[in-house]
């Protein structure tokens, strides 16, 4: 009953480490600014909002950097419910930069379409803020709220092209499935709380195992919680929303969903696995193993059949998600924990750069072709060589071909799988290897269109690429190449990313 005494004591204002919260605060300030300015600003000057949004995100990078450089390596607040550690800092950086690129991708798109611009930026920043929060959340409630925080704006963004039934459909599907998944997850969380009497992950960790009196409920809880995030990372069979939503949503939003939102799901998954379920590896390892194998395979196989480029990339990103999951399937085994974490982070960093690049090119090309078909890329190289080469680089990187970023990501994933030196690890590695080959089937198909097919309607007028889009393409392509040639750069960050309080090593 010590607890009782503590609780019945006089309320004390919690201490807030404002430096630690600074990135979130900057973004929060930025989104308020956007919302307010939107009311007052002239219709013709609304482009200012995109500038503000992008600067907000860059500005938020500053505290991230100062935090990274500061002496205190781990800052925890609210009774360890909100922790700023290296992992969260790295991921915050990833989210902010990815968000920045999404803003760049969006700006011309949003200006030209009939969008609600101010609200668009507001929702985008909100979702990003949710992601930032997700990286540091270390209790169930925070995670749940952060998840909804990043999801709810995203549901609406997916439907943002209001007149387009496809976009509506995308939004509804995303929303419905998202809610189902969070319902399942909540059920799991409620059981976790019930068994462990805490929402704090580190407390949960001590009591959550696959054995003991409450084993069955714990299994159920762990599985359901993981399902919630498996949905978010669109792991098969919880992926069904992804292709439809990606296809229907506005392209920049799709880019955002496929990169940032998915990364947020992984962040939560990793945090849960490392800090909440370290002793329950018997539960989640096989589950994630199956998820990973299914995700890679089904994603790939279905991608082979796609005619729509965005839908194809959707399936591709599903399958990429399977690769990210790979190392987690053995993360609980002795000695492979830290390398699994590293490879997940690394994969997310590189995947973010590459996939955003892909969407950059898709956006640029669709400006001209107004088509989402793969065949609209026909002969791209002949009239837009730069875009053709860039798309090739990005796709090759996704396929994992050296010396582009993707290979080191896959390599690291394989490495940590094999590091476990377990049959499960080897088997999954073989499945992954086979899948990385299948994947080339559809990446190669796009390359084939770009390089070897004629221009569909013989229209070879060059493509005008707006400045912001060029900047986005530049950033992503340089990142993709650099990560490939000098993988140490990305690996350095991935290696830094340690979760405070993680028990798995």
């Amino acid at each position, binding site marked *: 009953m010590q607890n009782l005494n503590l609780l019945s004591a006089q309320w004390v204002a919690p201490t807030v480490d404002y430096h630690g919260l600074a990135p979130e605060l900057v973004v929060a300030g930025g989104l308020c600014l956007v919302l307010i300015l939107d009311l007052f600003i002239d219709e013709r000057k609304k482009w200012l909002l995109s500038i503000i949004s992008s600067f907000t995100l860059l500005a938020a990078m500053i505290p991230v950097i100062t935090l990274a450089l500061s002496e205190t390596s781990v800052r925890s607040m609210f009774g360890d419910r909100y922790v700023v550690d290296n992992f969260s800092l790295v991921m915050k950086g990833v989210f902010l930069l990815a968000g920045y690129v999404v803003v760049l991708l969006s700006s011309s798109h949003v200006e030209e379409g009939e969008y609600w611009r101010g609200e668009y930026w507001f929702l985008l920043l909100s979702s990003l803020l949710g992601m930032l929060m997700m990286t540091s959340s270390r209790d169930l409630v925070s995670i749940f709220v952060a998840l909804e925080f990043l999801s709810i704006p995203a549901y609406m963004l997916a439907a943002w092209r209001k007149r387009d039934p496809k976009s509506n459909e995308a939004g509804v599907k995303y929303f419905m499935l998202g809610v189902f998944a969070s319902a399942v997850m909540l059920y799991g969380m409620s059981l976790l709380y019930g068994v462990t009497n805490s929402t704090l992950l580190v407390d949960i960790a001590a009591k959550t195992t696959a054995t003991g009196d409450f084993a069955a409920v714990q299994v159920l809880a762990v599985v359901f919680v993981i399902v919630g995030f498996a949905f978010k990372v669109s792991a098969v069979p919880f992926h069904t929303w992804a292709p439809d939503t990606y296809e229907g949503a506005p392209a920049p939003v799709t880019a955002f969903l496929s990169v940032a939102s998915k990364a947020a799901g992984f962040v939560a998954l990793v945090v849960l696995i490392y800090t909440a379920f370290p002793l329950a590896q018997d539960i989640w390892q096989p589950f994630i193993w199956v998820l990973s194998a299914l995700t890679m395979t089904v994603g790939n196989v279905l991608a082979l059949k796609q005619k729509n480029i965005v839908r194809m990339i959707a399936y591709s990103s599903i399958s990429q998600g399977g690769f990210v999951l790979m190392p987690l399937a053995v993360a609980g085994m002795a000695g492979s924990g830290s390398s699994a974490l*590293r490879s997940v982070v690394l994969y997310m960093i590189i995947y973010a750069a590459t996939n955003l690049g892909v969407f950059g090119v898709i956006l640029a090309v669709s400006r001209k072709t107004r088509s989402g078909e793969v065949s609209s890329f026909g002969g791209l*190289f*002949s009239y837009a*060589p730069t875009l053709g080469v860039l798309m*090739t680089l990005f796709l*090759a990187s996704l*396929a994992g*071909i*050296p*010396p582009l970023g993707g*290979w*080191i990501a896959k*390599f*690291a994933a*394989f*490495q940590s*799988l*094999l*590091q476990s*030196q377990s049959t499960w690890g*080897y088997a999954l*590695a*073989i499945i*992954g*290897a*086979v899948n*990385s*080959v299948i994947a*080339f*089937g559809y990446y*190669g*198909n796009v*390359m*084939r269109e770009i*390089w*070897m097919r004629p221009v569909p309607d013989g229209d070879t007028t060059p493509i005008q690429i707006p400045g912001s889009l060029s900047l986005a393409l530049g950033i992503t392509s340089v990142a993709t190449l650099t990560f490939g040639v*000098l*993988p*140490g750069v990305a*690996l*350095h960050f*991935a*290696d830094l990313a340690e979760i405070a309080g993680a028990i798995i090593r």
Partner: protein
Amino acid sequence: MNMLRDNNWVLSVGTFLPILGVVVMMLMPKAQDQAVKFVALVTSIATLAVGIFTAMKFDFDQAEKMQFVAETKWISVIKSSYLIGVDGISLPLYLLSMVITLLVVIYSLNHLPNPGKPKAFFALLLVLQTGMAGTFIAQDLILFFVFFELVLLPMFFMIGVWGGEQRQYASIKFFLYTMFGSALMLVAFLALFFKTGAESFSIPYLIENGGSIAKNVQIWIFAGMFVGFAVKVPMFPFHTWLPDAHTQAPTQGSVILAAVLLKLGTYGFVRIALPILPLAAREWAPYIGGLAVIGIIYGALGCLAQSDMKRLIAFSSVAHMGFVMLGISTLTSFGINAAMFGMVAHGLITGMLFFIAGSVKERYHTLEISKIGGMLTQMPRLGWIFGFCCMASLGLPGLAGFWGEFPAILSTYNPAAGLNVTVYRVFMVIAALGTVFAAAYLLWLYQRIAFGTPKNNSHDEHSTHEELHDVTTHEWLAWSPLLIGILVLGIMPNLLFSVFDPAVQVTLSVFGG
């Protein structure tokens, strides 16, 4: 392992110089075709110059040692470093890649295949060169893998963009096969890494420590590498990408594919698979040998069935690489020497044959054997060169092909200790029969193409007799080094053997002598 570190900048320069050329090309304004060609030519000449400088500085008396070794941190997190060096095994192949690239560039100056686009073409060619050279100098598995894969995309595009009718199918097929192989190879590399204590990816380190891995584990790891390398070689039954790729690839692509790319696989066996996993190698050797002789006969049968000249030459590669693999499978230093020689010889000869096929295609607008005839009458020089190459390819003593073929057969008689002698002797007889087949298909090919009277019906209205010009200056420039190489190596095989041998001996020292 002993390493010499003098002049260790030359390898990096030689390898990455082409990339510099690519960058320069990329920076050039559009529609500067001549300038692009010039840059490509200068780059490849400069690269070769660096290569020759390397050869001059190479201490041939210590060919068994790694030389020009450079080591820098690269991906320290995964304990992989930028470790490069050459020894007697890699130097000739390293130089071969440079020579072939230069010749291909020269040939391409006025033989650019459709649809043109010189900038992209030469850029890919130079990237390809970097990949090939890099593979031969890499002394770190990860670095090796990166370079090994680096050649994939340029070749994919070379086939896919500049290739023949079925180019897209062929290019995808090529790519998928190789990807499949290298994916498994990567898994094997990683398994190797962890089984040796997760200390380093450096090949010398692994050679020292790989032998201590348990045998059954070695066998599995070897299996992964085997698939990776065998696809590249290509060994039966992983060969089916090759005929398509060759047939559809532009001449330049075929030449590079045959002359250098296929060697990446066999080189991988000699450099990596055998010395690091000696126990597994011994278990696998008879199977490799068996597949090799199947490849020899099978490739030959495939050749006999062809009606397309280029496809025939492609199938002959399967047979020839069978001899190379047979030599490797003996696990004797002589056999591996023969294999190394066979690699270089096959590079020169088959490369040359593909050049000829390209020129035939250019002149006759077909490669259908039945539509070509009497080449000796119409273009005597081309016909004679073709004859020379056929003879070299079928292993005529005194030409380079023989020294890859016969020693391989010879070494099969007496494989390394512990291998089943009877099985290998059977291999030997089959391989010797393969030489008969080689004679059959090559001579038959030659008879049908070069002899007889010209077939006028082969000419559609576009091609008049003026197109049937004999060998041009560019072709002479591009070909004569190969022709001279074939002859010189045939007469003085020791030029190569003396370089290979010490390094091969060292490589095989893991087998206990």
